[in-house]
């Protein structure tokens, strides 16, 4: 469906004429006339209204009974009365009914002071209670999950959380059990409610029935302040509000609705990951290696050692930039390398090389979709990416498009996707064969010549490719969510070429509301590329005179062309392919400077100077959303410990290396310099970015990006698939610091799992839960075998970025075949991996929600 046009109608509310969008529910329409109608169950984010709570009853002329304003659309000429005695008496009645079984324990309730039930009871209630019978009782509070506590006595049964679970997250875990006044919210079998988005029910709950376990009893609303910023824990870049106490402690994070980014939702990583900010083992002092170990030192010492080391290395310095770095930080670092040290070895991508021409085509405004285009797309193509793990909130967006607007979802991935169930066509290709899969889709769209051969090279049945292509070909609008991984590895450029060729065959630039949205491998990947953190492209995607080494080529050059490494919030041992090569490179490097918030093993053992990195709550600056939206990070708390702003440290290093005074005095100055260097950002100010962000493609300066043409040359023939069991590596939402340093999320820490098909498991004589070794030659990682029905025979999947047994030990960007062997039980018991009883089950939680006890008769 196409984006609906807004048409206004006028209606009369409480004697005033008000204009509101046609079709808007009365509750929303009334707001155009500054009339507030109280609600509990109504929440437009949850889809169609249900009219359950009856709080919003109003009088409408010509209809004898009172009507629920939440489910009655505004019509032209409608006459609505919200303040008559009749309406008031109904409102009083509903409030009285809702309070019948509510414990009124506001003084000890977390929601007290920010509770819609309090507000509505105060504004629209009778002001007194006539109920003196015993209230219903439940055992409370119970852990609905390790992150959410449930108090069933406070629950007013508004159904919001249940609708959320059923219709937004589509995890179908929460249900209303029993009926009448003994109904209660729970899960089918009393199992914990665990899912990537479970915490949203805390925000949705209009009373204090669902509360955050880590926030319980930590503060009252009048003790805290709220600070708006952007979460940088994944590329979704959801807008968040941080609850801050005493200007120095983040106590909570919740969504700050921005329909162009997050649609009002937040994943649990973003919601609870704030605990990492105040983790006890966070790096909050500068450190230098002294006698073999890292020791906290004053800033002056750390800075002078860094300056000395970098000066010595000069053009032999290489830098990796991690996705949590801001545009300003990335810009300043690449300038430090290029202009001060004379090196172009800077990369923000973990693998592969992005051709300059490709980068500029991919940045074309007419080729890029905005996030909200997903809502109205005819077809959403999910290509070599798993949104729920890589940019979580987009998963909900795709589900919404399919459920509410009838978008047809096409999934083309190696690993079975959580969106398969919503998809009308699924192309399952062999791990690493995305280039061939794209070429096959292209062939199917353009007459089918060579399709069978290409499908064979992709390891995908040709008929699935045909089915997907026919959906794509017939679509009037298409949004493509493509995973950066298809551009990784030695054949990355060919992968991008195949993607662009497919876009050309789809004529995507000529279709309204269509385009690409990249799902990058790190948060600010797009911004970092645009400000010059690529070895071949400077700020503004402009080719540089000398081309530096890409990340994948750096390890080999350490000891020759490269002697010093700068890691700006990057940990190559975690996130980059070819872990052994990076481990050896860090060891060989004469000088390593790391900006980091936690000591990863590489930093711990190899860094010579460590600068403490500020968290997103401490940063000021900008980042760029994968759809081109510049967003603003606002400093929400004071810098923790000895932490200094990272832009300032980079500026100071540059100045010291040049023996000049520091000229960069503030973060806005850094933003200004960055903006001035990127032609298509020209003129963007922090004020213009504001709290909602601005897409640079929507500004006039976008035209300064030289229009690069979609390449139309013939594609290279993709390589043949190798024989044997093909290894696919995938990202997990739960790897990394959030599960390692945020206590409330530690129960989700993934252990290495080898997902394989039942056929392969039978052939290899493996059962779920067996400890296995996956690898080739002498290189192996341990994993727990997990069977998954939808995994095609011949593929096995491991997770990248786990704390132990990281799959990156087995990857180098090229397709890889592996062997799997079972580890004898006796040996396995002595390893770091616990023997999982059922590795096929969802990541186990440590705690169990009890089922409700029946209320006393």
């Amino acid at each position: 469906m196409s984006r609906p046009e807004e048409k206004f109608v006028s209606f009369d509310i409480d004697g005033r004429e008000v204009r509101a969008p046609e079709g808007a529910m009365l509750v929303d329409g009334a707001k155009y006339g500054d009339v507030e109608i109280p609600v509990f169950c109504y929440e437009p984010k949850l889809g169609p209204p249900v009219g359950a709570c009856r709080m919003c009853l109003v009088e409408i002329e010509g209809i004898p009974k009172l009507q629920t304003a939440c489910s009655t659309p505004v019509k032209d000429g409608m006459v609505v009365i919200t303040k008559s005695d009749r309406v008031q008496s109904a409102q009083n009645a509903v409030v009285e009914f809702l309070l019948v079984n509510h414990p009124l324990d506001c003084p000890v309730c977390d929601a007290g002071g920010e509770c819609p039930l309090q507000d509505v009871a105060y504004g629209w209630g009778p002001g007194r209670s006539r109920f003196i019978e015993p209230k219903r009782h439940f055992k409370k509070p119970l852990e609905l999950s390790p992150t959410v506590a449930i108090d069933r006595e406070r629950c007013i049964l508004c159904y919001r959380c249940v609708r959320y679970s059923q219709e937004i997250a589509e995890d179908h875990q929460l249900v209303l059990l029993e009926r009448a006044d003994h109904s209660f919210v729970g899960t089918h079998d009393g199992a914990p409610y665990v899912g990537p988005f479970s915490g949203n029910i805390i925000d949705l709950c209009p009373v204090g029935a669902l509360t955050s376990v880590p926030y319980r009893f930590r503060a009252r609303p009048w003790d805290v302040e709220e600070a708006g910023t952007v979460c940088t824990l994944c590329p979704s870049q959801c807008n968040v509000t941080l609850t801050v106490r005493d200007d120095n402690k983040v106590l909570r994070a919740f969504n700050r609705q921005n329909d162009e980014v997050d649609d009002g939702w937040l994943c649990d990583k973003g919601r609870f990951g704030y605990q990492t900010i105040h983790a006890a083992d966070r790096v909050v002092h500068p450190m230098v290696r002294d006698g073999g170990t890292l020791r906290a030192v004053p800033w002056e010492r750390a800075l002078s050692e860094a300056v000395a080391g970098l000066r010595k290395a000069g053009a032999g310095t290489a830098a990796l930039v991690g996705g949590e770095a801001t545009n300003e930080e990335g810009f300043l670092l690449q300038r430090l390398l290029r202009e001060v040290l004379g090196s172009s070895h800077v990369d923000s991508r973990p693998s592969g090389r992005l051709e300059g021409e490709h980068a500029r085509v991919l940045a074309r405004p007419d080729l890029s979709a905005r996030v909200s285009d997903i809502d109205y797309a005819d077809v959403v193509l999910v290509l070599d990416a798993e949104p729920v793990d890589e940019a979580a909130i987009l998963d909900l967006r795709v589900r919404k498009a399919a459920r509410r607007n009838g978008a047809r979802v096409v999934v083309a991935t190696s690993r079975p996707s959580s969106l398969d169930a919503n998809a009308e066509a699924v192309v399952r290709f062999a791990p690493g064969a995305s280039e061939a899969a794209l070429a096959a889709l292209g062939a199917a769209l353009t007459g089918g010549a060579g399709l069978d051969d290409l499908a064979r090279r992709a390891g995908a049945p040709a008929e699935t490719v045909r089915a997907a292509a026919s959906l794509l070909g017939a679509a009037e609008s298409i949004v493509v969510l493509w995973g950066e991984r298809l551009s990784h590895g030695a054949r990355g450029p060919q992968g991008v070429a195949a993607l662009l060729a497919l876009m050309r065959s789809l004529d995507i630039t000529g279709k309204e509301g269509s385009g690409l949205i990249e799902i990058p491998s790190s948060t600010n990947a797009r911004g970092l590329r645009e400000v010059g953190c690529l070895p071949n492209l400077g700020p503004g995607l402009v080719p540089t005179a000398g081309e530096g080494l890409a990340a994948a080529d750096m390890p080999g050059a350490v000891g020759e062309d490269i002697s010093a490494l700068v890691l700006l919030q990057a940990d190559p041992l975690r996130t980059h392919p070819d872990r052994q090569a990076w481990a050896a490179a860090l060891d060989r490097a004469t000088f390593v400077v790391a900006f980091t918030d936690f000591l990863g093993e590489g930093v711990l053992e190899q860094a010579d100077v460590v600068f403490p990195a500020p968290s997103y709550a401490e940063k000021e600056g900008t980042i760029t959303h994968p759809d081109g939206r510049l967003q603003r990070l606002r400093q929400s708390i004071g810098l923790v410990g000895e932490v200094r702003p990272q832009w300032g440290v980079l500026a100071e290093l540059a100045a010291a290396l040049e023996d000049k005074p520091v000229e960069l005095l503030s973060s806005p100055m850094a933003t200004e310099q960055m903006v001035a260097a990127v032609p298509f950002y020209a003129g963007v100010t922090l004020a213009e970015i504001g709290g909602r962000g601005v897409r640079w493609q929507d500004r006039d300066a976008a035209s300064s990006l030289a229009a690069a043409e979609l390449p139309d040359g013939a594609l290279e023939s993709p390589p043949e698939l190798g024989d044997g069991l093909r290894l696919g590596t995938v990202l997990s939402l739960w790897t990394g610091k959030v599960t390692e340093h945020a206590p409330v999320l530690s129960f989700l820490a993934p252990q290495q799992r080898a997902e394989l098909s039942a056929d392969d498991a039978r052939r290899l004589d493996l059962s779920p839960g067996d400890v296995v070794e996956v690898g080739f030659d002498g290189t192996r990682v341990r994993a727990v075998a997990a069977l998954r029905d939808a995994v095609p025979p011949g593929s096995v999947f491991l997770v990248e970025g786990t704390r132990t047994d990281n799959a990156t030990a087995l990857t180098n960007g090229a397709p890889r075949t592996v062997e799997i062997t079972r580890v004898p039980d006796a040996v396995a018991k002595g390893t770091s991996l616990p023997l999982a009883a059922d590795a096929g089950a969802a990541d186990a939680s440590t705690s169990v929600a009890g089922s409700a006890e029946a209320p006393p008769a």
Partner: protein
Amino acid sequence: MPLIVDRGADWFRSLGTEKSAGTKVVSVSGNVRRPGNYEIELGIPVRDIIYGLAGGLEPGRRVKCFFPGGSSAPVLPGTDENLDLPYDFDSMAKAGSMLGSGAIIVIDDAHSVVDVALWTAEFYRHESCGKCSPCREGTNWTVKMLDRINVGEATPMDIEVLAQMQANIIGNCLCVLGDSMAMPLGSMIEKFRPEFEDHMEAARQASEAEAAAGDLELTGSVEGAAA
């Protein structure tokens, strides 16, 4: 049905009254000697159904009230005036009730109207799905209040609250289940308020006497009221 097909609509319309044409199968239950389903011509007096077809009440009993159309219909007291009403849609509506499903439930004067109210409320509390607030909480509160009247812990004010609560339920629910309890309950209170008051007072005195006579055994309901 075969008769209608055979003799035509006009014949069927010639039966009954002008606005309630034809016949209806009524289901008579409660305190009658021959409960059962009877096909009647609409418009015959209620008395003919209860005393004629259903065999009347046990000797010595009179009709205290009756539900003219299922347990969700407001009750009508068993006055001569009401018993002489023609059983058709219009007349029942005019009398403040409804013909509804045609299920006539007869209550004789051996039963307390408070008990009838409680049975009715308990049925609807059980049937409530719990989705909308007025029905979920209203049916539950009504039952609790009637229980309290029964154990002698209510005051005349409670009867007023009970009556207002029924008014607060009617018309404010998502479906008509809540109304189905509130309409008969409201009518019982309206039409038999003195009996509610007497019942309450009698229960209160009984409970006080029990407390005074006994060894002050606190009952669960006292604890309940305190909670």
